[in-house]
């Protein structure tokens, strides 16, 4: 039914995965390069991802992807083979390619054939890179290696060999003997154990196996460790470690200790046809057998609906049981009930299982953030370290997707407004390089994500002053504000602490949006900041999107849910004095004024009977944007599953979804952010518009 579309979908998700792999390896490479230890396996992995992507793109006729993959692959190949030295300037276009790949895919998806405008400049940048110079010549002469061995080295292996010798590592030969049946595992184990000590350049069969069931290999190994360490770490009865002597050509001495043949006395130049075992080993390691399956999230939604239907069947069965009992079939009913309980348990497990499948690690979005951080910090010329912990923490797929933008914004803010310039940091005795920590961890039923920087902190006084200047606060309110309340002003629309807007984090549009977006996911955001020490934003999220704590209220006979995350308190409202201020109804609450929103009036609800004498005000909102929702009755707190309103109600504002009340009825969930916006910004104009509409 969905053959072609299905295949294309598959292409997009597979391509996206490859791009993610590329991105992840580039990030690791960047970090390794800064530490001065570029890991060749990372370049290889990145190369492999792009290579596969190129093939895939060719298959699906995505020319933009093909062309870019081709250019990127060339550069990575040169790096991999050591024809070029890895430098930050070379990483820049590679990082850009990650973004451009994504742009091309998005356009492909929308059916746009034209490549994004960013493609050509990047291609010419990649082409325009100067040819690299490599000074590996002469390295091999330092060792008297068997020409037979040198002849079978691939270009890559030869490069690694030269690079290792130039890096001053010593060469060793490990003679190993493995059973043919378990060679894959044995080789993997050896690689694992050898990795901390150095690098395996190549391995070749010696052709001298003691029996037909075993194979003997010579492993060429480069290491900084000395012989006794290696013997201790790797030597067993099946692994014999020997050093390979230097020929020391500079001192003009003839090779004395070991003849060149020591490495592989009779190594066949090319593995012979009958000698397929080591080849198999290589193949296996390249095609790491994947245990994962990609699934369209809508299919999971469908499964979830089936679970819902099954529970309906279950209650029908229960009713039948009751009828049977009434007719006197006691024994049958007992049996039926026992089965019913098993059924319930399994159904619950099924439901949990499906929810679990929807969970993905936060690492997916953290990788993207790390890329942005690298780019933005280079643009601004700031040296910033990103420390990530808890990338394996899992959240519902939809939440992770929705988190991407808010987190991106917070990171940009931290780089732009948080971390000070290098001189300023030195002046106050901080290390020149700033640090941003991104921590995620599970806390009960919730997941916490913290973004912490060691920058200058938020200037609360400046924020308050600005808020007063903009008319958000009056002078008395400003003077009564606690430090915490003042910080909360960051979430007020239109307030930006940095006086000059920048390209990076813009002009004070943002933190309010961030807060609203987080609240929409049922999350809360907290802010701590100490001047001179840094700022920490902590987001608390439910692990599954669906479940949110809400305060259920009744207005004009209808039940509505207010997400608890936006409610600060609820109080009785029995005819307190209210006054009108700029067209809004306002009451005083502990000396401050609170704008009221009569929900029944604001939503134009049909009121069947007069509102009760004693009503309630639900104080809700964010930061300085608070509002009192006037309702008839408080029903209580409840964990609800919020479902989005359908396409047919897409134009309706003021509700973020609806929830099942269990008895076939549903309650709308108020979008408090939108209601506040209507009352504060649009004021009575909006009101009138709705009146005309209704």
């Amino acid at each position: 039914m969905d053959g072609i579309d299905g295949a294309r979908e598959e292409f997009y998700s597979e391509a996206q995965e490859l791009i993610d792999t590329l991105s992840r390896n580039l990030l690791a490479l960047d970090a390794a390069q800064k530490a001065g230890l570029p890991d060749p396996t990372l370049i290889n992995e990145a190369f492999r991802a792009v290579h596969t992507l190129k093939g895939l793109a060719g298959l699906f006729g995505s020319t933009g992807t093909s062309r870019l993959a081709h250019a990127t692959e060339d550069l990575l190949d040169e790096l991999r083979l050591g024809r070029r030295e890895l430098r930050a300037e070379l990483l820049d276009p590679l990082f850009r390619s990650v973004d451009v790949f994504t742009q091309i895919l998005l356009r492909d998806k929308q059916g746009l054939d034209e490549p994004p405008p960013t493609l050509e400049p990047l291609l010419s940048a990649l082409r325009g890179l100067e040819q690299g110079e490599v000074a590996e010549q002469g390295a091999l002469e330092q060792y008297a290696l068997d020409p037979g061995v040198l002849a079978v080295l691939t270009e890559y292996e030869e490069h690694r060999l030269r690079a290792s010798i130039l890096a001053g590592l010593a060469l060793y030969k490990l003679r190993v003997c493995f059973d043919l049946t378990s060679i894959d595992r044995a080789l993997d184990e050896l690689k694992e154990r050898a990795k901390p000590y150095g690098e395996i350049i190549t391995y070749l069969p010696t052709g001298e196996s003691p029996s037909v069931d075993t194979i003997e290999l010579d492993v060429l190994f480069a290491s900084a460790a000395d012989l006794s360490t290696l013997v201790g770490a790797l030597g067993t009865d099946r692994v014999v470690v020997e050093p390979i002597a230097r020929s020391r050509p500079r001192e003009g001495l003839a090779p004395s200790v070991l003849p060149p043949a020591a490495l592989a006395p009779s190594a066949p130049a090319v593995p012979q046809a009958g000698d397929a075992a080591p080849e198999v080993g290589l193949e296996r390691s390249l095609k790491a057998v994947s245990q994962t399956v990609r699934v369209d999230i809508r299919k999971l939604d469908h499964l979830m609906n089936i679970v819902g239907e099954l529970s309906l069947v279950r209650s029908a069965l229960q009713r039948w049981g009751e009828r049977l009992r009434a007719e006197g079939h006691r024994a049958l009913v007992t049996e039926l009930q026992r089965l019913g309980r098993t059924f319930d348990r399994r159904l619950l497990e099924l439901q949990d299982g499906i929810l679990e499948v929807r969970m993905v690690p936060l690492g997916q979005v953290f990788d993207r953030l790390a890329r942005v951080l690298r780019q933005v910090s280079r643009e601004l010329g700031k040296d910033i370290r990103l420390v990530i912990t808890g990338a394996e923490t899992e959240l519902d797929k939809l939440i992770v997707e929705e988190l991407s933008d808010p987190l991106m914004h917070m990171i940009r803010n931290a780089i732009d407004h948080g971390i000070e310039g290098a001189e300023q940091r030195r002046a106050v005795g901080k290390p020149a390089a700033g640090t941003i920590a991104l921590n995620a961890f599970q806390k009960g039923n919730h997941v916490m994500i913290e973004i912490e920087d060691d920058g200058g902190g938020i200037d609360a006084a400046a924020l308050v002053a600005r808020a007063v200047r903009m008319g958000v606060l009056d002078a008395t309110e400003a003077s009564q504000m606690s430090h915490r309340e003042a910080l909360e002003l960051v979430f007020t629309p239109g307030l930006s602490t940095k006086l000059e807007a920048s390209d990076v984090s813009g002009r004070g549009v943002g933190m309010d949006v961030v807060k609203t977006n987080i609240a929409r996911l049922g999350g809360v955001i907290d802010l701590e900041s100490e001047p001179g020490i840094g700022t920490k934003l902590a987001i608390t999220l439910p692990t599954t999107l669906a479940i949110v704590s809400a305060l259920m209220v009744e207005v004009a006979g209808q039940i509505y849910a207010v997400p608890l995350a936006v409610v600060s308190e609820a109080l009785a409202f029995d005819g307190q004095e209210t006054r009108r201020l700029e067209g809004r109804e306002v009451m005083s609450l502990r000396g401050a004024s609170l704008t009221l929103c009569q929900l029944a009036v604001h939503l134009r609800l049909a009121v069947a009977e007069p509102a009760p004498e004693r009503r309630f005000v639900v104080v809700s909102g964010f930061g300085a944007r608070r509002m009192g929702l006037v309702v008839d009755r408080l029903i209580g707190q409840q964990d609800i599953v919020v479902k989005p309103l359908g396409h047919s109600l897409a134009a309706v504002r003021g509700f973020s979804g609806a929830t099942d009340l269990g008895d076939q009825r549903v309650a709308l969930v108020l979008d408090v952010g939108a209601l506040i916006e209507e009352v504060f910004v649009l004021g009575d104009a909006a009101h009138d518009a709705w009146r005309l509409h209704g």
Partner: protein
Amino acid sequence: MAEVPERRVARRALQRVVARDGAAEEYLSFCLAGELYGVAITRVREIAIVPPLTQVPRARPEVLGLCSVRGLLVTVLDLRRRLGVAEGPTTRRSRVLLVGGPQEEVLGLFVDEVRQVVLLAPTELEPASVVLGAKTPDHVAAVGRLDGQLLVIIDLKLLLES
């Protein structure tokens, strides 16, 4: 999803006819303000007794409300308002047809009464503009006859996407 009983009965009765004339299509007929209407049965997923409806403030007037059908959130539209015919009270015969709408959304359509499934060949249908005049809206696809009464065939795709 369980097959609608009316549909099952009709299918059995009509199997022979279908065999003779493969082009014939099944329509579900229903009443609105005393008039007969029909929609292609392939569009109808289920016929439900009118569930309790939650008002949606600010929605278009034809939105009767929201309900939950086994956990699925469904917007119920009033076909009478959508088609501009007179509205009577909800009776025990009133039903909600669950149909597939735009963007894969399941929509509920409130109707006064569900009648039966009829099998009509294209030759039994007349173009709407011939019978009802040139000003007939696009979503009125054709007109058939049933027991001497006019049966107005509605194109749900056109009706719901406009």
